[in-house]
């Protein structure tokens, strides 16, 4: 996926209409300052729970939940960040989670964006019903059909292997739905022109539609990655062996009914958020104008 987008790095960037660095009136300057102040205050408020996570990761266990909340840890337990690597299999958990997240994301993006073309650009009988069936399955709570699904997968010998999570998450309806909606906003004229030039539907998908879908693909990659990364119930049901645990399952093993390592859980949570934040920041550059179509529509 990344390759596809990298082949054609964001085309010549046209600045959004309201961005004019050279002609700012004092009013605009004030508005801009107000915007930054507002955004900064809102950011601080939004990040409060995350700040609590970080602070809690620096406490001793029995200091995490107190009345009132202790905002400054005393003593500051930096050793939690060392202990978590020493006392647990954090490395294995991260490796498994990474394998799953990358694998699921790859399959979901590939099969999802491929299938979406069938739903968006091809017309054939039964298409809409099939599409509704896809969307419909999203509406069923997973706990309700978890057991029938588990029976099927364990009959196939896949339970207690990483494959189970991989095949389970990779073919979900979410990616198909997301990509289909995005393709819908790509003007039909583009593909028509390509058809006249003699391109097959597969070539149109690969050479025209996919390259235009940078923002949607970036969104799908990010959301699939995050959801697989943070999934708890799936790995809980399917993975037993310690060697197969993901971060979420691993962190939960610090919590037992009688004694919970709250501080270590928070330490692990902070560590586990970091890769996502980095990927998110890196993915920003794909959120740029993808389709220059005015000429066609005109």
């Amino acid at each position, binding site marked *: 996926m990344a390759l596809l987008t990298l082949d054609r790095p964001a085309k010549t960037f046209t600045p959004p*209409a309201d961005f004019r660095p050279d002609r700012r009136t004092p009013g605009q300057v004030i508005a801009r300052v107000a915007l930054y102040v507002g955004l900064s205050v809102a*950011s601080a408020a939004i990040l409060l729970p995350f700040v609590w996570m970080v602070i809690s990761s620096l406490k001793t266990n029995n200091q995490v939940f107190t009345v009132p909340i202790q905002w400054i840890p005393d003593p500051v337990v930096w050793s939690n960040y060392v202990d978590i690597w020493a006392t647990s299999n954090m490395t294995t958990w991260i490796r498994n989670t990474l394998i799953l997240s990358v694998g699921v994301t790859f399959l979901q993006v590939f*099969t999802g964006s491929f299938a979406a073309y069938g739903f968006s650009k091809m017309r054939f*009988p039964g298409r809409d019903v099939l599409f509704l069936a896809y969307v419909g399955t999203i509406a069923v709570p997973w706990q309700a059909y978890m057991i029938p699904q588990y029976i099927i997968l364990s009959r196939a010998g896949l339970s207690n292997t990483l494959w189970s999570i991989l095949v389970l998450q990779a*073919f979900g309806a979410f990616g198909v739905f997301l990509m289909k909606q995005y393709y819908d906003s790509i003007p039909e004229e583009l593909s028509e022109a390509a058809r006249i030039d003699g391109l097959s539907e597969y070539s149109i998908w690969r050479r025209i539609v996919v390259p235009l879908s940078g923002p949607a693909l970036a969104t799908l990659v990010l959301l699939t990655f995050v959801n697989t990364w943070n999934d708890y119930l799936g790995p809980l049901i399917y993975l037993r062996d310690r060697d197969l645990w993901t971060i979420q399952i691993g962190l939960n093993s610090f919590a037992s009914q009688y004694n919970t390592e709250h501080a270590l859980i928070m330490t692990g949570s902070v560590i586990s958020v970091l890769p996502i934040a980095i990927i998110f920041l890196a993915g920003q550059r794909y959120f740029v104008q993808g389709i220059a179509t005015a000429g066609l529509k005109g």
Partner: protein
Amino acid sequence: MATLSAAPPRRRTRRPGARLRRRNTFIGWTFILPNFIGFATLTLVPVLILFYLGFTSWNAFGAAEWVGLANYERLLNDRTFHRVLFNTLYYAAFHIPLTLGAALGLALLLNRKMRGVAFFRTVAFFPYITSIVAIAVVWNMLFSAETGPINQFLGLFGFDDLPGWTVSTTWAMPAVIIVGTWREMGYFMLLFLAGLQTVPTELHEAARVDGASSWQRFLNVTLPCLRPTTFFVTVMLTIESFKILDLILVMTNGGPGISTTVLAQYVFRKGFQENDFGYASAVALVLFFICISVTVVQFLANKRRER
């Protein structure tokens, strides 16, 4: 569903049309198939089994016993289920528009070239990836009836009968709605951001030249171009709202009493806790039919506007 399938393809009698349609069908399926194979065996089949289970009494072990409509008759008289259904509708009715508005607003605000925009977008997304335990603790502290900043703030305006928020049967649901919106706005903002990239700048320019105000441009350029995304976001948001579970579990655990117990929680309770998987399946099917009806309505409305 029948009307839907009948709508799009127009019946033609000419042979070449039929051949073209066959070819299109074939090509269409080759696109869908790689995903569909996995989807059908791992998701669709279990869901169809669930449809069957809704008409049985099943304890997860061994064969299910057919009981016809008994589960649904029981649903009709189950007053707890009615309350749980009401709670879910209550949550959805407020959470959907609030999140939609907040997410779209954030997306518009952060869809511009400015210094630090990547940072602010990341911040907006952070609630979605922050540990849910941390979210519950901090928000519960903010909502705390006697010492919480929210009530102190309200107190400044002279309100004296301050709400008890998460420990009050009246105010627990509004509290959960607020936190739910706060948590998910960044997620849906991202989807809107992707959609906004499809809005051609040239159209904005042309409208600006014609003297349209920014509000008019939003109404007449941005919104129409955003329609496929809006449809996607609304459907996903609807479904996710009706399926809300984890946030409720950590914030209130469905309490006090059953004032914030929702359908997904009831499914789990009846199934895994009370070992009544047949009844749990019936509850899940009710949830499914609500979601699918809302989706079909949106689908049809969307189709009509596209024309």
